[in-house]
């Protein structure tokens, strides 16, 4: 079996399990909240308007944004209340997905109850049923098929949307899809998609069985469907033995690009060798990753000095790399208790890059040269750069104005510059594709961009034995080796997985 497939399949059971547990819990909460709300809404016009309006409004927020919103919301709530509310992982994902599941359950619930023949309701009142008897003996049984159709819709949506939970640090089948997309590992992407689709189809099928049981008044079908669903949920809630040591797992964070996956794998290998159990939280946003570390939701990850300097400390000045690291370490420790364990030995700086032939044809070597040509050129940036302080700093010093600027995920950004869709891109200096695509990075004589030494960060109060286990990584990775490792994962042919690249990088 190909290593990419073997690795994806190896990760699959645990991811499918937490995916099912997350989406199952979300749909269950959606039903528990949605049904009473639907009953209330069906009876009162004054309740119905606001409730359906609000549920509809929630649905218009893209699922990805809804998930991302709950991270800062829970963080603020935790700080304000003084309670230990986990802002990363299961809880924010559960809340967002439950809200998402609410609309179809509510809408169908209201439609089911309102759609019941008025004569039947009049007869129910006429024979002397109480409201509760009318609800349980008449309205719910008659509305059940439509209510269940709503639950089916909610289940399918939720299982799909749960793939996005990976962005708030909740393991799900989205881990395979997101990391696969970043590294163009299509085996991983397809494994994740197929598993999520399979799960959705299976759950939908079981709910359809229950629905047909209700229609045909077949208790056997209802019981069979419900038993299978409950068994699946129970299976998802059972702890899966992951091997390795005992005790609480060390949670390793990673942002959403190949180098981060490789370094997280390298850290994971070191910790496992030292006997620790580990968990991964991949695909975190830049600011989410640091806040999660400061809050103790993740325990260790790699960030870059310039990013921390400008985004976390909000500094606009530029210092020499060593001085900057020293000040960074002191400030982060004082402010958040975060430990900067040291630099890994290479830099991954933002650098504006162009294809060599194009740069030479236009006579561009530095950002000053670029300023003159920019109005005729297009800029391809990664998803973050145009909103980062570094870009403001570059604009302030060089007054760059491009004919067109677009954001791409890193993989597609390199494709764009290679294919001519973008003239200038915001490359990363450790990226193996700079050499393989024959790009040149433009000099920054006015020092608009700070240095971006890769640094290893650990959460406040991290155990000294863990730090000791990671110490060998400090200063051990040269930029050439990092580029080579990145290229192994990013290139189109003979691709390796991040775990394989990590084995090569830190044997």
């Amino acid at each position: 079996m190909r290593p990419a497939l073997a690795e994806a399949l190896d990760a699959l059971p645990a991811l499918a399990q937490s995916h099912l547990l997350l989406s199952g819990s979300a749909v269950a909460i959606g039903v528990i909240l949605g049904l009473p709300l639907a009953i209330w809404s069906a009876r009162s016009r004054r309740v119905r308007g606001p409730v359906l309006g609000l549920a509809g409004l929630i649905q218009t927020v893209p699922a990805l944004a809804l998930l991302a919103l709950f991270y800062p919301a829970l963080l603020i709530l935790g700080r304000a209340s003084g309670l230990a509310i986990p802002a990363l992982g299961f809880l924010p994902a559960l809340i967002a997905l439950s809200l998402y599941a609410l609309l179809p359950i509510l809408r169908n619930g209201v439609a089911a109850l309102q759609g019941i023949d008025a004569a039947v309701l009049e007869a129910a009142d006429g024979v002397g049923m109480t409201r509760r008897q009318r609800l349980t003996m008449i309205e719910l049984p008659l509305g059940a098929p439509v209510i269940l159709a709503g639950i089916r819709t909610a289940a399918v949506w939720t299982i799909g949307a749960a793939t996005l939970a990976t962005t708030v640090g909740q393991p799900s089948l989205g881990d395979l899809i997101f990391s696969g997309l970043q590294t163009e590992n299509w085996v991983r992407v397809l494994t994740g998609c197929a598993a999520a689709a399979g799960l959705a189809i299976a759950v939908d099928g079981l709910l359809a069985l229950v629905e047909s049981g209700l229609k045909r008044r077949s208790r056997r079908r209802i019981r069979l469907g419900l038993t299978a669903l409950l068994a699946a949920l129970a299976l998802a809630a059972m702890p899966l033995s992951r091997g390795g040591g005992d005790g609480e797992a060390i949670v390793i964070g990673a942002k959403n690009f190949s180098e981060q996956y490789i370094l997280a794998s390298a850290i994971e290998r070191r910790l496992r060798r030292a006997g620790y159990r580990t968990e991964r939280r991949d695909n975190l946003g830049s600011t989410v990753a640091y806040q999660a570390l400061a809050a103790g939701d993740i325990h260790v990850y790699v960030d870059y000095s310039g990013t921390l300097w400008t985004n976390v400390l909000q500094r606009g000045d530029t210092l020499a790399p060593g001085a900057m690291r020293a000040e960074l370490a002191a400030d982060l420790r004082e402010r958040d208790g975060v430990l900067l364990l040291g630099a890994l030995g290479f830099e991954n700086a933002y650098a504006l890059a162009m294809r060599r032939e194009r740069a030479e044809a236009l006579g561009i070597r530095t950002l000053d040269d670029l300023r003159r040509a920019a109005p005729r050129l297009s800029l391809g940036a990664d998803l973050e750069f145009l909103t980062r302080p570094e870009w403001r700093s570059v604009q302030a010093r060089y007054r760059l104005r491009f004919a067109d600027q677009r954001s791409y995920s890193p993989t597609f950004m390199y494709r764009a510059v290679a294919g001519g869709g973008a003239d200038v891109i915001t490359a990363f200096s450790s990226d193996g594709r700079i050499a393989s695509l024959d790009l040149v990075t433009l000099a920054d004589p006015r020092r608009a961009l700070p240095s971006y030494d890769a640094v290893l960060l650990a959460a406040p109060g991290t155990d000294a034995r863990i730090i000791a286990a990671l110490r060998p990584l400090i200063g051990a990775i040269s930029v050439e080796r990092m580029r080579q490792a990145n290229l192994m994962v990013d290139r189109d042919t003979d691709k390796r997985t991040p775990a394989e690249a990590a084995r090569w990088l830190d044997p």
Partner: protein
Amino acid sequence: MTAFLDIAGLTKRHGGRAALDAVGLSVAAGEFVALVGPSGSGKTTLLKSINRLVEPDEGSVRLGGLDVRDVPLAAHRHGIGYVIQSIGLFPHMTVAENIGIVPMLMGQEAADRTAELLELVALPAEMAARFPCELSGGQAQRVGVARALAARPKLMLMDEPFGALDPVTRDTLGRAYRDLHERLGLTTLMVTHDIAEALLLADRVVALIDGRIRADAAPAELLSSDDADVRAMVDVPRRQAQRLAAL
């Protein structure tokens, strides 16, 4: 002797309009009373005030000497048979379950009277296992009547019970019900817009127009009412009968 059903000063307003305007009516046990009148005259509102599907704004309804507001709502309705034009059988229950619903709600022991009740409404016993969607309109309303009779009510309220049926079925069912009324010693209030049906089935016909009782008489007397509007109503079937006879 106090009346079995005694309605006094009953008023119900919808917006500014009075659907019922100080209606008073006394019905003795065993009477069969038809309520007639044009659409919107308040017939159905009056009927529903009795089993409290409508709460009147003023006035009182006394049944068997008790004000209906003093009796628990569910128990009050369990004691009244209610039959409506749209029938309202519970589609997810069998005929037997539909018929047995009131005794079940009352928590009565499951002495199975399904066969007896089906026989009462002239339906074969094997109907018991069918679902409402498998019945014809006439069969369904027979089941509706059986459901209303299941808990042995003293009072039957019927709101255009045979209005949606074809003429032949309607005639058969009307006469069959009149027999049941006699045999079971029921007291019946039946709303109908069919004057001929009212005149032929009831002991007493009450005409409501614009929320007021304009006539209250035995069928034969109603034919010679002084009220022009009432006369106009009862003249319709009479003229039809004359024209039919002249064919």
